């Protein structure tokens, strides 16, 4: 029993991190039909920026803020600089964003070096608590709780607020939205930047659990794309469910069938996609 409680909590933690990483990606992709393969690099840049800030100021919150800011600005800059190319063919998006991703990733290597880094959870969130009969790190529990809260908040914003409605209008029918006077271009820029900022923020948030090292950007990107497609592009609820699902499958698969680890994760993904191409909760792609 103890073993399973542990693993469920681990799965939820993994799912929480996946959710935060994917939510930015799925909204941008569903919204703009832009496949941003630089998302993982934005995650890592934010993480390292946050690390540098925390080492300089000893403030975790400052680190979070800087991480989000740096990635958000980068995202904004990318959107502005390559606006036309980004809205072009999928292939151009792949090429462009992959190129940016290589540049950012190598830049991190040059600045921070190759040694993997560890980020400690802030003192007020460190240590472990006894919960459901196991000793579990407080910080991880916080991530799980946060993902639920954030998920709910985002959903409310998305479904119930007027800004959310505006964004949804742009997704559903861009020309119509423009005709109604909605500043579509600005909406896209803001959403893109916010998605990037969220990725950077997650880089810092996830660091006490995953650490920071070269190559993490692509590891994260791979998982985020999988989660996004399984959940359905553009669907927040889908992203949440898929994150938790993938997190659980990944954790359980690793422990129960370590010899088949990538099979246990990717085979179900293939099955889901074949049976339901638009993902769990996505709308059929045009």
């Amino acid at each position: 029993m103890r073993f399973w409680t542990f693993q469920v909590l681990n799965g939820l933690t993994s799912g929480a991190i996946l959710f935060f990483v994917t939510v930015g990606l799925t909204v941008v992709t569903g919204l703009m039909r832009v496949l941003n393969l630089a998302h993982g690099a934005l995650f890592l840049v934010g993480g390292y920026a946050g690390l540098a800030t925390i080492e300089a100021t000893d403030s975790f919150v400052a680190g979070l803020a800087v991480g989000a800011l740096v990635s958000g600005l980068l995202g904004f800059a990318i959107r502005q600089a390559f606006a036309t190319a980004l809205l072009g063919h999928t292939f151009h998006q792949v090429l462009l964003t992959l190129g940016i991703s290589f540049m950012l990733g190598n830049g991190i290597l040059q600045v921070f070096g190759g040694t993997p880094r560890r980020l400690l959870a802030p003192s007020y969130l460190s240590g472990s608590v006894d919960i459901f009969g196991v000793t579990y790190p407080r910080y991880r529990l916080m991530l799980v709780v946060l993902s639920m809260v954030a998920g709910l908040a985002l959903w409310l914003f998305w479904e119930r607020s007027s800004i959310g409605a505006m964004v949804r209008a742009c997704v559903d029918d861009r020309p119509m939205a423009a005709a109604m006077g909605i500043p579509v271009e600005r909406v896209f820029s803001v959403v893109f930047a916010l998605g990037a900022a969220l990725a950077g923020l997650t880089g810092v948030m996830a660091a006490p659990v995953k650490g920071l090292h070269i190559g993490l950007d692509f590891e994260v990107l791979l998982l985020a794309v999988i989660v996004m497609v399984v959940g359905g592009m553009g669907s927040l609820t889908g992203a949440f469910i898929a994150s938790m699902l993938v997190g659980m499958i990944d954790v359980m698969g690793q422990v129960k069938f370590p010899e088949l680890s990538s099979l246990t994760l990717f085979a179900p993904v293939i099955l889901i996609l074949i049976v339901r191409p638009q993902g769990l909760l996505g709308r059929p792609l045009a």
Partner: protein
Amino acid sequence: MRRRTYGSTQRLAIAVGVISLLAAACGDSDSDSDSSEPDEPAPAEPETPDPTTPEPETPDPTTPETPDTVAEVETTDAPEAPVQEGPIKIGVLNPTSGNFTVFGEQSNAGIELYFEGIENTVSGREVELVFADTAGDPQQALEQARRLVDSEGVDAMIGLVNSAAALAIADFADQNEVPLIIAVGSAAGITLPENASDWVSRVSVASGQEEAPLGWYASTQLGCASAATMAWDFVSGNERAAAFGETFTAAGGEIGSEQRPPPNATEYGPFIAALDPGSTDCMYTFVVGPGSVAFFQQMEDFGVAGEIVPVGSGFVTAGILDTLGTTALGLVQSGQYTPSFDSASNAAFIADYSAKTGSEAGVYSSQGFLAAEAIALAIGALGGDTTDLSVVASSVRSLSFESHAGPIAFDENGQAIRDLYITRVVESGDGVVQEVIDTIEDVGQTWTAPG
């Protein structure tokens, strides 16, 4: 109309192709080769490499006495051949990108440090280092090795930080008849009698070389009655865990839970959760690089760190140890090198390394330094003569000297025989250090427990 024209061009194509093939088959393809091929008959090379063909014998070299002082390359009674023109080119294969960058950087620094110490000169000839990035990937390592041998014409190759690349390059070195000194790359097969190549030597451990004594030590000296194993699920990890288990159980211990996380994993929650701290005294771990940082952190997070004594192979030193900090407290390792090894030459090595890089020397720096030292001493023993590379390769084998990490010699398969230091991570000042608690002497690829 189109079909007729097409037919004739098809025939033309076949003609061109056949002519080219014939030209190539009859032509001499070695005229451009610029690696220093020996003029005397090289060992007979089978045409298609066949794993069951025994290794050909190398001609007996007339090697003079090898020097036994460290870092001094003396030209003793060298052969009649005069010193060659041109620099000695040493190819350095290490990752400077990818997951193992940190180890590659340390190894390269150690190599550079050695050659700087001898003013880049061996037997009056200048030494030129040609660096190549393997990214830790055997395929890329192979491509770079081809560049080193075919394009740069290196006289020898040194380096490597992981088994996968080491295996591929060892095979390459054997096929292309270029001496190779492996700094780190523990695949046991490289120096097993059935596979060993006269061209390849290794200064560091073979899988199991650190673990066999450790298993015995954990049971008899650390008082562990039961142990778990946590090793990455790949060839090296499995070999090592098995070697530990073998001597541990032979000494009376019992192996409990055996966890095999995927290589390069950064999430150990599931595996740590499967342990039972109540009935486990020690745990053998083989988790390297970024994974080790995550692993020890998570051991602490899940409240297991204080309950089980971690024991491992000596890879956690210097940079990584600093990052791990107090999460690695209590870790007992068996390794060929630790900064805490007390000798004058080690103190000098550490000081010089620190002055050069601003960081502390660790296992990878030490092994790189040693590989450099070995190739330099081997060539120096020949008076700097690199015309016959097979003589260079066997010169490496006959080395026996006192290094900054202790004594080193090679067995008949190219595997180094060295002392093993048992260390424990303890607090020191505001950080942690390894403290030497024991020494096991003359440990080779096979080891029998005392008594």
